[in-house]
């Protein structure tokens, strides 16, 4: 080792001061580069190589960072996990849906703190676990990214403080100026909200006006006149043997259709040894679900409705024939059946004419129905709108005497025929406030918007029927800066309340005392909140069986729930009769325009909901807009060729109103009637629904201030332009095929397998049933060591409402594809409800068989994957992406699918759906799964399918798995009914029975055992696919 030291220069050796100073600098340059100093040139840069590299590195990093937008995903773990909360385990909270007069007690399924699915609450005596499509879809409305994110002032975002101050001042100014203050709402069914409104009204001098876009003011007024009760009575269709409906679509949209469907279904089921069936007569101008399910249906002219009701009244009471009723045969038959079923029948009318409703009341009174099937003592409270009061509001508004108006859950600028007057009047009102949670026609004209919570974020209660109460509880903390409307109201009159406390206090003071089986209020509150419903007189599970306890309940509740009060009919029949004879039958040569609620859209408050927009109408099977339904004769006269969804535009002229609208030919519609659905043509709402279809509210007529849902004297002219309406079904008849098997009730009584089709095959050994021949070894019970899942669908109690379609979409993350893709016949629904019309043609004349009859019989058939045991799809998949489980399910392995579509081609039921595009995160399909908020509705238990793979009904395998795991954790077998598919759960008429066919005690096994030689059939038995889904024949109660 040498200790020699080398030095770089003389300076180093001498430790020169200047040298030492710069020794650690690489290039030993004197001056620093100062960018702000122009005199320091780059040549003087010190450490410039490193800086260059730094700059280069920074530049490269900056460029690449800017180039790729790194998604920021935050997963924040719980530091303190709430006790009741386990990731991946769903929690259910009881709540209440009430919108557009539709009430359902519901259970809200939440996962990881977000509601993802609505289920019916079986504890409710009203809907008994049933929900409708609109209720199912309401969870998606929560995640609408077009909701207001906070309060608005003059159309611009504002703050609650600013808004509160301005509104309070506005209210006191109005009061001081002696101007009128209005609170306009649709029917408020919540007793606590009514209390809050009353307090608000007292403090602010406001008048509360309720109206219903689908008004039943005629019924309310008629009942007031007949019985002194301004209410809709509670109907119980389950007790009715004969039902006659005049234009009342009680299975589709009328008043409380979900509950009515469940009731009516009880009378249509022919299982469990029951051999009795109700008979339904429908007199209607357009085809509705009620008419479609009627045993006898007659197409009548809407402007003749009163005459038909009168004819029935006369036929029952022995009055003479009514002029103008050309063919009274069916009326006479209905009268005969009604007389045979006195006290066990219901006659209803959908008319909003008091005189007709008076006649209907008289009929029901004559038949003695008020004591049994119709309950006025405990009426429904879901429709309380007063058309006359609303008319006076409009008068005041136009007169300029209104100082402030508050719209609470009301959008009259859209859903009222006097929208023009309202919007004009609103301009001169000093203070206008809307509680709308998303933009609507009224909110954008209001000075302030104080967005209310969505019901899934809110506290609330409801009393849909006298003596029946239920609670609404938040299932997610408010997504946006919204505020409970009741709190806002109180705040504006100077009261700071927590609506939760207010609600609790109200229940404590009014309801707690009406029971005596909870010892303290906290228990009462907790259990009521847990159950969602509180029904002092109903089947409350917590109510002791000991009736003496109930008997000792305080006097107040006895009065409130008393159903035994006698009501004496006091209607003025002669004047109603003369009014009806004077006003009806005057349709003339023009067409009657019938304006109806569609099953999906209702009155349009949930219009911006892609699930509902894409929900095919149960009757027309069209979606994504409304259209004018035409009778076939008119279409022929206009030269309108309708084929495969292709149709034309027509112009509808009514007085000075003219609209241009696509036409749809509707079999079964009266020849002088055209129909148009409400709920469409929104001018201001979210992106999906704005300016889709035409607004029919503008065409409503008024009689005695009551909204009339028809107009006479419509003129229809054809236009040469062609137009495409998106249909999911363009072929309307069953072509004589045994996919639908049906019989008449008397045939069924004689021979329970009437209408069944047994395919046979000729062999060398003679004729044998087609299903006995197979290439495969016959399966045995041993193939299914554990479970054997299956389904039986009763065609007799499926009314076609389509709730299952939306429930399935919600449960299984079925994408929405939009109008163009539906036109391309690529809707993705896993379950569909095929609707067939009967044809008059002779079998064999195939082109004539394609045409439905003018007055067709209708049948609905829910169709989903049939889970065939000899599945044609399974054998043809080259990569085994679809296989059979040991529990009898046909399963899709999305990951394995390469997308040859052979399975879909080979599926005789055509239930497989292919992902033609990537639907999530695709701007071409800008629906809920294209934004983060909308994606929150996705069920995390179900894969979101990628482009290029096939999908189909899995029989809710995730629910089966969950049920099995729950049972396993408790070391038991799953109990029958514990596992339900989404479609079976939602079905208002309980037409779908799902269960384990391997369990002899399950309800499905019992149905199969009872019906296998009677009504049970499998689709296309002749091709021997051995489906796991069976159907029970359709039985029509007619001669």
């Amino acid at each position, binding site marked *: 080792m040498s200790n020699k030291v080398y030095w770089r220069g003389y300076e180093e050796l001498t430790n020169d001061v200047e040298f030492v100073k710069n020794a650690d600098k690489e290039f030993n340059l004197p001056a620093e580069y100062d960018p702000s100093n122009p005199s320091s040139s780059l040549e003087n840069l010190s450490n410039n190589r490193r800086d260059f590299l730094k700059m280069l590195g920074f530049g490269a990093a900056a460029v690449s960072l800017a180039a790729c937008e790194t998604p920021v995903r935050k997963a924040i773990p719980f530091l303190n996990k709430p006790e009741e909360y386990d990731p991946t385990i769903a929690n259910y909270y009881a709540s209440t849906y009430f919108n557009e007069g539709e009430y359902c007690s519901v259970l809200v399924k939440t996962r990881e703190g977000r509601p993802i699915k609505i289920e019916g609450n079986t504890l409710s005596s009203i809907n008994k676990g049933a929900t409708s499509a609109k209720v199912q879809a309401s969870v998606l409305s929560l995640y609408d990214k077009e909701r207001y994110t906070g309060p608005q002032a003059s159309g611009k975002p504002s703050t609650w403080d600013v808004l509160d101050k301005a509104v309070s001042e506005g209210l006191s100014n109005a009061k001081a100026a002696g101007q009128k203050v209005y609170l306009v709402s649709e029917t408020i069914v919540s007793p606590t909200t009514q209390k809050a409104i009353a307090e608000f009204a007292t403090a602010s001098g406001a008048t509360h006006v309720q109206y219903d876009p689908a008004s039943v003011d005629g019924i309310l007024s008629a009942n007031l006149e007949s019985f002194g009760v301004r209410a809709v009575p509670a109907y119980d269709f389950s007790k009715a043997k004969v039902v006659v409906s005049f234009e009342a679509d009680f299975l589709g949209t009328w008043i409380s259709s979900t509950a009515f469907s469940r009731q009516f279904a009880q009378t249509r089921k022919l299982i469990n040894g029951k051999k009795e069936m109700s008979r339904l007569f429908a007199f209607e101008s357009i085809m509705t679900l009620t008419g479609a399910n009627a045993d006898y249906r007659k197409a009548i002219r809407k402007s003749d409705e009163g005459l038909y009701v009168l004819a029935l009244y006369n036929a029952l009471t022995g009055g003479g024939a009514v002029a103008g009723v050309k063919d009274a045969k069916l009326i006479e038959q209905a009268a005969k059946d009604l007389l045979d079923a006195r006290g066990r029948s219901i006659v209803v009318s959908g008319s909003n004419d008091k005189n007709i409703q008076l006649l209907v009341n008289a009929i029901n009174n004559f038949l003695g129905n008020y004591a049994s099937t119709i309950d006025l003592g405990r009426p429904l409270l879901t429709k309380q709108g007063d058309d006359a009061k609303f008319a006076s509001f409009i008068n005041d508004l136009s007169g300029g005497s209104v100082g402030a108006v508050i719209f609470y859950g009301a959008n009259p600028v859209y859903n009222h025929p006097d929208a023009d007057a309202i919007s004009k009047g609103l301009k001169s009102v000093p203070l206008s406030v809307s509680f709308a949670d998303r933009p609507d026609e009224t909110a954008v004209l209001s000075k302030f918007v104080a967005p209310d919570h969505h019901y899934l974020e809110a506290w609330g209660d409801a009393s849909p029927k006298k003596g029946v109460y239920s609670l609404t509880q938040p299932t997610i903390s408010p997504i946006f800066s919204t505020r409970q409307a009741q709190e806002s109201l109180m705040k504006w009159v100077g009261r700071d309340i927590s609506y939760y406390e207010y609600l609790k206090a109200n229940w404590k003071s009014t309801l707690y005392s009406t029971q005596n089986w909870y010892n303290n209020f906290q228990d009462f509150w907790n259990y009521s909140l847990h159950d969602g419903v509180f029904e002092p007189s109903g089947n409350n599970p917590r109510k002791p069986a000991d009736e003496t306890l109930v008997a000792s309940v305080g006097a107040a509740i006895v009065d409130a729930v008393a159903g035994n009060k006698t009501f004496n009919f006091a209607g003025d029949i002669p004047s109603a009769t003369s009014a009806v004879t004077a006003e009806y039958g005057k349709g003339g040569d023009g067409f009657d325009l019938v304006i109806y609620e569609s099953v999906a859209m209702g009155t349009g408050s949930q219009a911006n909901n892609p699930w509902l927009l894409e929900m095919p109408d149960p009757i027309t099977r069209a979606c994504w807009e409304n259209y004018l339904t035409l009778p076939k004769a008119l279409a022929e006269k206009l030269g309108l060729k309708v084929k*495969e969804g292709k149709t034309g535009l027509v112009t509808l002229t009514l007085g000075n109103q003219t609209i241009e609208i696509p036409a749809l030919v509707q079999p079964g519609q009266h020849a002088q009637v055209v129909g148009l659905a409400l709920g469409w043509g929104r001018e201001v709402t979210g992106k999906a629904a704005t300016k889709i279809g035409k607004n029919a509210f503008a065409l409503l007529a008024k009689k005695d201030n009551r909204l009339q849902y028809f107009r006479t004297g419509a003129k229809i002219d054809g236009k040469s332009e062609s137009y495409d309406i998106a249909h999911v*079904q*363009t*072929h309307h*008849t*069953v*072509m*004589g*095929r045994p*996919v639908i098997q049906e019989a008449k009730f008397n045939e069924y009584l004689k021979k329970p397998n009437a209408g069944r089709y047994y395919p046979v095959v000729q062999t060398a050994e003679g004729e044998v049933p087609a299903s006995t021949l197979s290439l495969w070894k016959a399966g045995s019970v041993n193939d299914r060591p554990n479970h054997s899942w299956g389904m039986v669908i009763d065609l007799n109690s499926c009314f076609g409402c389509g709730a299952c379609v939306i429930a399935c979409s919600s449960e299984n993350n079925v994408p929405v594809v939009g109008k163009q*893709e539906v036109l*391309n*016949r*690529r*809707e993705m629904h896993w379950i*569909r409800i*095929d*609707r*067939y019309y009967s044809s008059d043609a002779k079998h064999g004349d*195939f*082109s004539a068989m394609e045409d439905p009859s003018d007055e067709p019989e209708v049948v609905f*058939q829910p*169709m989903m994957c049939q889970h065939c045991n000899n599945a*044609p799809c399974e*054998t*043809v*998949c*080259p*990569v*085994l992406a679809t296989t059979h489980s040991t529990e009898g399910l046909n399963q899709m392995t999305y990951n*394995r*699918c*390469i*997308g*040859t*579509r*052979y399975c*879909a*081609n*080979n599926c*005789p*039921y*055509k239930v*497989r*759906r*292919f*992902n*033609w*595009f*990537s639907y999530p995160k695709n701007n071409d399909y800008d629906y809920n799964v294209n934004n983060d908020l909308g994606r929150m509705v996705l069920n995390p238990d179900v894969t979101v399918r*990628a*482009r*290029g*793979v*096939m999908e189909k009904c899995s029989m809710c395998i995730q629910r089966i798995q969950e049920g099995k795991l729950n049972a396993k954790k408790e070391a038991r077998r799953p109990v029958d009914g514990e596992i339900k598919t989404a479609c079976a759960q939602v079905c208002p008429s309980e037409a779908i029975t799902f269960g384990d066919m391997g369990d002899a005690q399950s309800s499905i096994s019992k149905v199969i055992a009872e019906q296998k030689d009677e009504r049970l059939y499998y*689709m*296309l038995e*002749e*091709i021997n*696919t051995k489906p796991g889904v069976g159907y029970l024949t359709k039985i029509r109660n007619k001669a």
Partner: protein
Amino acid sequence: MQVTSDVREPLVTGGKTLKDVTNDICRQVEGRPSRSWIIAFVLALITLAYGTYCLMMTWFVGLGLWGLNKTVGWAWDITNFVWWVGIGHAGTLISAILLLFRQKWRTSINRAAEAMTIFAVLCAASFILMHMGRPWLAYWTLPLGNTYGSLWVNFNSPLVWDVFAISTYLTVSVVFWYIGLIPDLATIRDRATNKVSRLVYGTLAFGWNGAAKDWSRFESVSLILAGLSTPLVLSVHTIVSMDFATSIIPGWHTTIFPPYFVAGAIFSGFAMVLSLMLITRYVFHLEDYITYAHIESMNKIITLTGSIVGIAYITEFFIAWYSGVEYEGYAFINRASGPYWWAYWAMMTCNVVSPQLFWIRSVRRSLLATFVISVIVNIGMWFERFVIIVTSLHRDYVPSSWAMFAPTRYDIGDYIFSFGLFFTLFLLFAKFLPVINMAEVKAIIKSASEPDPHAGSKASKLGGKEVEVTDSNH
């Protein structure tokens, strides 16, 4: 060793000598590309480019760009696939079956026919890839080892049979074609005047030196491959037909499909060979090699297979009625009188009526008539597949799901892609490889050196004449 009969028409006219054959056929390969070739090639490339654009769009955006729907899951994609596979049948039939049947006239056309086969099968294969929802996973249809345990292909699925059938057919066809090319490649190598040609053709010729041993091995391999290919001619379209026949869709579920499809395939394959050869003959001045006799023979086969296909159509109808199956009966009534009636009657006119014109001698010896009918036959055969696939699917069992299919620009564009691919490949082949099998043609002309004084007419000499081919290099 070849024997020609004096009572037959000579297969090659114009009194060609062996040297003439070499010169005539090598002219294209060795010379500069002709003007007409360049124009054709540019057109083919433009077609291919447009088709590739459409294809890329379908791959990047999704199959929704096509007109398919929930009811009609296959339409133009599988129609085109079956159509191209059908066209691809003529090559093997000509080179294998006609070889075994000692049909000497096949020698002038077998090379081009085989090339056409390969290109047609490639086009067909492109539709297999194209029609998949996730084409990047196409290799999952192969029984490859994997780490997923027992995950395997489904040997029950006709699509898996298809994969085997098509890949086998393609492999054997390529090998057969290439082996046949070797002597000719050697000829070109030996005549090459520049290094590049010598190197390329020399490499491709696998060191062929024309020795007797080479020829002996060549003949043996050709025979073996002919033997191997023969069943393939029948099997490929049989298996393709099973894509339909093993399904349960009325109109597909038919036992007649295998023979019916094979006949149809030969029918369309011959028509395509005729269309192409008539153009090649004209453009490359090969009138002496592809003679009226060739054309007439091919037309006779077209008439035969066309008639078989016609009988099959009628049989289907009869069975649909005779079986008494409601769905089957309706499927056929719907074909003839439903919304796609025009496709059905186009098929009937093109496939059943038009080839019957060849019963007239003047028609079957008319170049123009032959060309027109050959194109019509291929249009008809395309419609046949369209009719089978689309009209069966669009109205099957459950009327609620009945739907219509209409093509989009991408359906059409992807079909155009296959034409672009086919003609690009075929033109490259026509330019750079001998379109007529020189070695085999030399084996059938009468003499190595002496010009035939009766060129174009029946030979006057009685008895056979032996021509020994010992050298490919003239």
